[in-house]
């Protein structure tokens, strides 16, 4: 057991570095989670706007009706919000289909880095042959790796140029709308549980009428 716990200086340094990285990862993910929670709370307020009037005027008097009405309004809101991203994604898909039809090539790799994909617009490095040096006993990359492919415009990749950014932007936009939909659904569920809830928490029997009023 003791021999198992004997660590070299390199091992100790490696463990410290890994621990620091893990702590940093957890803290960053904690802050990202808090940010997402705040955004979802903000998005959920839309549901209160949508159901406020019908509840306030007494048109809806029970939680089941509120859930049904709220779901309908939520679907409509999703449809209104998601029109643009869906149109972007459809246009991107159509452009790729058109590209495939024109070139008679349905096996195109849209991420190709040589000629046909979006990869032609980015730097590509040969990370396997990157120069390395020893730093506090650790072997780390010490310089930029050799360049494998420089960004260049390729007219043969116009389908990928339209498809990948279109799907990326439309997809992220739609994902935000999905997140808003979830936030509104959760708020609706909570509202339906609390708005028409009959609670006796603040009930004071001394202030209640002594003699019940009999119906005529």
């Amino acid at each position, binding site marked *: 057991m003791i021999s198992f716990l004997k660590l070299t200086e390199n091992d100790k340094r490696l463990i410290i570095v890994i621990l620091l990285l893990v702590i940093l990862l957890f803290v960053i993910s904690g802050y990202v989670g808090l940010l997402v929670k705040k955004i979802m709370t903000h998005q959920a307020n839309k549901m209160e706007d949508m159901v406020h009037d019908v509840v306030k005027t007494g*048109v809806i008097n029970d939680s089941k009706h509120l859930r049904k009405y709220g779901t309908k309004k939520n679907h*409509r809101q999703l449809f209104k919000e998601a029109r643009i991203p869906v149109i972007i994604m459809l246009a991107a898909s159509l452009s790729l289909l058109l590209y495939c039809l024109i070139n008679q090539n349905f096996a195109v790799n849209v991420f190709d880095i040589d000629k046909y994909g979006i990869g032609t617009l980015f730097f590509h490095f040969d990370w396997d042959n990157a120069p390395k040096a020893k730093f506090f006993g650790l072997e780390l990359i010490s310089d930029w790796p050799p360049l494998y492919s420089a960004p260049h415009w390729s007219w043969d990749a116009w389908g990928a140029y339209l498809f990948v950014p279109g799907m990326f932007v439309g997809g992220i936009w739609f994902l935000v709308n999905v997140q808003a939909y979830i936030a509104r659904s959760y708020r609706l569920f909570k509202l339906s549980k609390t708005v028409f809830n009959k609670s006796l928490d603040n009930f004071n029997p001394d202030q209640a009428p002594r003699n019940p009023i009999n119906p005529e």
Partner: protein
Amino acid sequence: MASFFKTFFKGILYIVLLPFIALLLAIYFVYCLVVFLYMGVRCIIVFFAGGSPLGDLPEDVKAKEILAAQAQNLVLQQQTYQQYPSLNQTQQPYNQGPYIEPTNVAVDNQINEFDESKNSDSINEEEPFND
């Protein structure tokens, strides 16, 4: 420091729950796409049937009617008060003086007066017996 640890532990929780969150998001992504398609088809049908695809629901129409009636009532009330401002004042009965709030001093004085009158009455009452 406490908030740092709170964030740190929340970070651990989010990392652990990340696969489930991603799965939920993926399911909802597909569900929302289906809802979008359904709404799209429904909107097209309603549009060609001559209706308003994203118009008000029956509940919205009722709520708007109630709100409009309430607003109209408020305007009518304001107009009435502007035309007859005397309606805005509380009328006092003609045969009563101004209302004076009883204070402890006034009550004490009344009690003293009552006691005095009682004493004087008792003297007057005793006199006939003396006769």
